[in-house]
């Protein structure tokens, strides 16, 4: 696998677009997932995904292979997403809809067969998405990388260019803030939600 990616990289550095296309197909899902959780909007995330790979193509000669390609792509993706957020701030906030809520709602509706379950899921994930949106960009980015994407602290520190201790502090702060803002939702889940072991089993099953 690594050798294949290395070969693809060498060919892409030589200008082989087909090889680069293979790399795009290999990494675009995780880049899109990172983008959509940071930006909260599927359309913007798709644009950010494309821009990430376009900027990576132009900077491919500077990738020296000391880190994983995915780590390098994550860093470009986060820079692109932060640019998108800065651009978004220039608009009138009252005119900007909360796209994350809409996208999560539509997605939950599409997956849940039971309307009651879908409604609960919509409300739950809408609250979660709104709480994520309220986090500062640094905390939100760290939560997306560590808690959602599952990157280890070392990899997240490489992506964000900060010490691992900073990653740990951000994760801890984000947990405190999210728990504070979602206290009522989490309180409702205390009796209904499955325990950690059941959740782990469900995770393995999926």
């Amino acid at each position, binding site marked *: 696998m690594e050798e294949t990616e290395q070969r693809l990289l060498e060919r892409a550095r030589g200008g082989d677009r087909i090889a680069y296309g293979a790399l795009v*197909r290999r990494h675009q899902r995780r880049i899109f997932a990172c983008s959509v959780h940071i930006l909260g909007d599927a359309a913007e995330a798709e644009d950010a995904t494309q821009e990430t790979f376009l900027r990576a193509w132009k*900077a491919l000669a500077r990738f020296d292979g000391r880190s994983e390609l995915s780590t390098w792509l994550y860093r470009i993706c986060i820079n692109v997403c932060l640019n998108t957020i800065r651009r978004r701030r220039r608009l009138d906030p009252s005119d900007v809809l909360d796209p994350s809520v809409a996208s999560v709602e539509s*997605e939950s509706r599409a997956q849940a067969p039971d309307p009651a379950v879908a409604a609960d899921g919509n409300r739950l994930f809408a609250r979660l998405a709104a709480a994520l949106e309220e986090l*500062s960009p640094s905390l939100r980015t760290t939560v997306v990388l560590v808690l959602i994407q599952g990157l280890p602290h070392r990899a997240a520190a490489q992506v964000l260019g*900060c010490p691992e201790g900073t990653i740990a502090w951000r*994760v801890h702060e984000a947990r405190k803030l999210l728990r504070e803002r979602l206290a009522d939702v989490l309180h409702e889940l205390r009796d209904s939600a499955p325990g*950690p072991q059941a959740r782990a089993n469900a995770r393995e099953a999926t």
Partner: protein
Amino acid sequence: MTRDELMRQVSEALDRVGSIEGDVELLRQLQSHPDVLGWARDVERLQGLLESLPLPARTEAQWEALALRTVQRLGEPLWPMKDPTAPPQFDEPPAPTFEPRAAIPSGANVERAASDASGATDSAPELEPIELHSVPPPPQPPSAPVAIPPRRMAPTETPVPVAPTDERVSLSEVLSERRVDRPLVDPLAGAGVVVPGMRSPSVAPGSGASVGRRAHVWWAVAAASAIAAGFGVAWLVTRSDSRPVLVEDAVTTLPPSSASAVSRTTAPAPVSSLAEREQSTASPRTIAPTSAVEEEAVGGLEPVDRASARRFEARYDEDESIPAAPPGPPSAAPSARSETLPARPAYDELRAEGSTVRIRSEVASGSHGRDEGGEATGFERPPHERRAAGTFASASTSPDEPAEVQRRERRSPRPRGESTRGAVASLPDVPSRDDVLAAMRAVEPAVAACRGARSGVATVQIVVGSSGRVRNAVVTGPLAGTPEGSCVARAVRAARFPQFAADSFTVTFPFRL
């Protein structure tokens, strides 16, 4: 172990193994802190929610289409951007850092957390956080006096007015003291010169660089005022053939404390009243008593000597392209100036392109009927010139015209900020047309990026402060109140103009989206 420390250990356990179940020691400690245990369970559930946060559903065909579009766009130019491979910048203050739990002795966690909160993240030895428990604070006797650097003047002392030209304070001293070290005591206060509105950095709340910067600004203002006042007094004395009346006139233009200082040190003889002063000038004319209305009309004006009034008049005539008044009574020319003024020629071209320019300044005593709102029609006269026109116009109706005009001329308004004009003499009154166009060109890309569903002309009324920063930008026209209009206003607020002398400057500029 404190609650915060326990919460942090819960977070670390979640990061390590995804659950707190495997950490027996932690669970045992949590039994004695049920609130933290509840917090830990909530955070576990929260983590589960985050892991199951859904993504928008996409089919394989959609993924393939996305990859194909990406590859097809590889040759396209991109908007300029800082190095995308550099570490992200969040425009936030630096975050504290945690160190691995094993590397920290359990007893030092609280102290470490305290040092973390201070933002010490650098590993350089000189920036290592001090372990508080190993460095006890030095014992201090309860009656030990607080070490406060002695001030040259106690805050409760009544300042003794001394002229700014006193030997104890000179510009070189001020500058050298400011350059060598950041002063805690303003030397002007030590010398007894009190600048109104100046707050001594030694008693101001806060410390550090902000106080130093604030002090530097006040120092610059105080030094410029003192120098200008000194030079102005000297110049007035030499121009007035040793008439003490001018000295006292100058005194009235200074702040109260400085004025008393100047009068005490430079006036050769005290002069008690206006009538006595006029008699001492050996003028053949007598001054008629001033009515209350006339006093009100000139009461807000600052006096200046006759030569200054004539020079001001000449500059005014030259600027506004009004023919010089024929020789005769001094009231003839001021009457002509009270008429409507033509627009300044330098902005004709700009207005011809659709932009209107005007100056709007704060006038404490009113605008003498000039329009202050609505669409700008041209270049308006600065407020001191407006006041001059009003004063001279009313002077022509005085029954005792020559003496009254002479007195009014002596009291004719000094342009605002005259005392500091020496420091900003090189600044233009307002930005030139090229300056305006350059500032607008600089924000043109940002404005163009605001293009959205609506299009049209966004006319922006921009109020620029004398520092060159935009104070306000309001979009009018069809795009007013739309997201595109708001975006344009935000973009224009980032424009920077060169500094100028007037208080503010208003320009109306159209952008086509």
